[in-house]
């Protein structure tokens, strides 16, 4: 069956089976920026935002979220217009293989929405659901810290 979703602010009609996970449906339809690391809800590589809230898309039936807004990592910034968090990741060496990055960046994004001025401990806690085997998390936490301060600056300048 075909169902329409709002993905990264665009309406899209996607083909799916009733028992398919959101992860599968997204990837099958070309949204390969959503990664699959375990399909058991344990790594966060498949994390997307549903109405702004982070969820592991491998643990969600696609059918059940048809009315919600879906955001993937491309929804917050792109190669040509990257988000401050994405820039901070790339500049700070927070991406090695980058396989965890789409999920990690979104987890950071959602953390900074809730808490724009987190301590390093709060960042670490906020990223608790996302595994990374390459970086040892040191540079990820630093990058999020850096991005938070840049975002705050940007905001105070705008005000």
């Amino acid at each position, binding site marked *: 069956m075909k169902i329409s979703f709002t993905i990264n602010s665009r309406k899209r009609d996607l083909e799916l089976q009733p028992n398919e996970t959101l992860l599968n449906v997204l*990837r099958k339809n070309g949204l*390969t*920026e*959503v*990664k*699959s*690391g*375990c*399909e*058991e809800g*344990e*790594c966060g*590589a498949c994390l997307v935002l549903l109405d702004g809230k982070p969820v592991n898309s491998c643990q969600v039936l696609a059918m059940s979220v048809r009315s919600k807004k879906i955001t*993937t*990592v*491309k929804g917050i*910034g*792109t*190669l040509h217009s*990257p988000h401050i968090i*994405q*820039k901070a*990741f*790339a*500049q*700070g*060496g*927070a*991406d*090695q*293989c*980058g*396989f*965890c*990055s*789409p999920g990690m*960046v979104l987890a950071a994004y959602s953390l900074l929405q809730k808490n724009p001025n987190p301590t390093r401990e709060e*960042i*670490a*806690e906020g*990223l*608790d*659901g*996302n*595994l*990374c*085997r*390459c*970086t*040892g*998390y*040191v*540079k*990820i*936490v630093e990058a999020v810290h850096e991005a938070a301060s840049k975002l705050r600056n940007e905001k105070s300048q705008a005000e």
Partner: protein
Amino acid sequence: MFKYVKHSVEKIDGLALVTGEEHYTNDFSFRNMLYVSILHSTFPYAKIEDIDDSAARAMDGVVEVLSYKNVKKILYTTAGQGFPEPSPYDSVLFGDVMRFVGDNVCAVAAETKEIADAALAKVKVRYKQLKPVLDFEKAEGSSTVIHQDDGAFPKIPVFYDASKNIAAKVEAEVGNFDDAFAKSPKKIEHQFYVPYASHCALEPHAAVSYLDFRGRLVIISSTQVPFHVRRIVSVVAEIPVSKIRVIKPRIGGGFGGKQEVLLEPIVALVTWRTKRPAKLVYSRKEVFTSTRTRHQYRTTFKVGYNKDGAINALHLDALENSGGYGSHALTVLANAGSKTLPLLNKIQNLKFTGRGVYTNLPVGGAYRGYGATEAYFGYGQIVDMVCEDTGCDIVEYYKKWTIKSGETSPIFKALGEGKEGVAMIVTSTSLNECIHVGAKLSGWYEKRKLYGGDFNKGKRDKRGIGMVALMQGSAIPEIDMASAYMKMNDDGSFNLMVGATDLGTGSDTVLAQIASEVLDTPVEKFIVTSSDTDHTPFDTGAYASSTTYLSGHAVKKCAESIKNQILKVGADLLTVSIGEVEVEESRVVVRRKGKQDHHQEVSFAEICQSSLYQKNQFQIQATASHVSPKSPPPFAAHFIEIEVDTFTGIIKLLNYVATVDCGTPINPVLAEGQAEGAIVNGIAYALFEDYYFSPQGILLNDTFGKYGMLTAHDIPPITVKLVDSFEESGPFGAKSISEININGALPGIANAFFNATGKRLHRAPFMPEYVLSVINE
């Protein structure tokens, strides 16, 4: 002094990675593609008497079933190593003997993944169960022979005795151990165990294949070794090398786990037979059970020493659990000796004995650290014990006894990779400086004294600090080869093609920086293409801490050759002699008596335009290869502070300081990242990671959650400090950094534990139950 090297340039693929643009193997799909699923053995040791796949084949959507019935049994090793491989030829793609739970029974290719999975359930397999060997300490000479009558043989002339379940044996001695040990006034003997481990690269193993327009086979794979994949697929799938192209796109981590040719021959065969694209992606469970692991080890150290702490004799005996097949069995074993024993090179009498044994358990393979991690657990503690016993300050002890610049160790020659090693003089080390800086940064002296004194008396939570010095290698000397090709474009940019394989380590960027430095041209000017067997020259691949050191050297040579051509054309255009010109900021400039003549310069773009279109036309291009005559060790010192809850047995890390000598760090931020990632993996291995098996040899903790991965929340404060040295044989002084830092956590934490409690840990992981039992001994 450097302009592009030793700068933390942003990774050239960085933004594309974090915006989700880059593609990994599983992100490639093709029209008409088949999905492949594998049926794995549920028995640790069994003979397949028959497979009946008729019900599976009858299913709508099932296109092909591969098993021993229709795939030729060609012996090979899955280890992605140079040819001839030092690992025994003891594997076939699909056999009729299952040697561990997770071994491949058959493969089904179907129109969808769902159909392929459903079809697996319809394959009827009649097994005859055999008595398995599930304890590696009982494998040698067991009545159960794991490779019997299968023709398994060593490809190179080394000791191999399948009838006794011996997959590998390594022995070496310098001096006379027995004699020196007997005469030593003090002696200790200790045994240590380290468990199985999974690499846990976040991207599961994956391979996709298709036929190109001319009928050649293209394999896209998450591999560390594209050229070895091409060679091995050619052999086992019986397809000529000329008809195979292997591409490694972005890869979601490797750590040694993808230095193995497992999935590629299967998709290759499906595509070759059906003429259709095929995809195989392992589930996380399959990665845990059916790919490769860190070998389980038992190490026994016998040490004889004097009252002043001087060690006269050291014997390291290693027993390695190779699992059902002998992938990397020999070389990991050799490295357990060759990457540890040279560190304290003043010991005159050294003996190494090791056996890798077959069992009916998951298969070992390459894993960051490669034997060194396994052996440092004991080696690092032994040194601490000797110091403790003789009242030596371990920091000063290491400074005094470790190998120095200008020195050698007979072990370099005695222990090679399947053959004699290569004698080598160490020409770069800043280890003493590393130790000095690390001691300072960690507050070593104050804390060691404090925690060793009354501080912990009567306390439930006891604190300790421990340290360890480490070495590894950089590439396999006189075996590994890397090469690079470069050509110049009309705007002064360059294509840089390398066989080297970026695993997320940033080697594409690091190699571009090296070319940048030679040509004094920004990194953006280099278009890097890597790991495509059709379009890039040969490279053995990403393993053995080789890429920066070895592939980097090939790139440097290649860029130097380009530079010469540019200078020649430039001088010609400026009508001066070649001795009067040099490159500077993407131009050729005239310099006389050390002064630059500003009116006489020509840009790289002008030079290339001239050479392509105008005068004495030719393509400015070069290729270079490199083999290293040595494997210069990187060094490191790790200082770890812990707190032990003596009621629960929980060890908490309070602080981790690592000082590292990787020569010149070509890209310091990326180098630090390598160290940090390795340290955290090392901590997880020391504290949590293990394989738990049922009595039937079934892996019980085959998910991230049950396995014990660390998250951002679990990590202690980590400080990595690079303490440079300059390695003459490396590009711009570089050595390696990717592996060494995984070796510190095991001995470092154990030494800290001794400082806290006065007890020694002999078994990893340091799970609370075990720790408690040690405390209450």
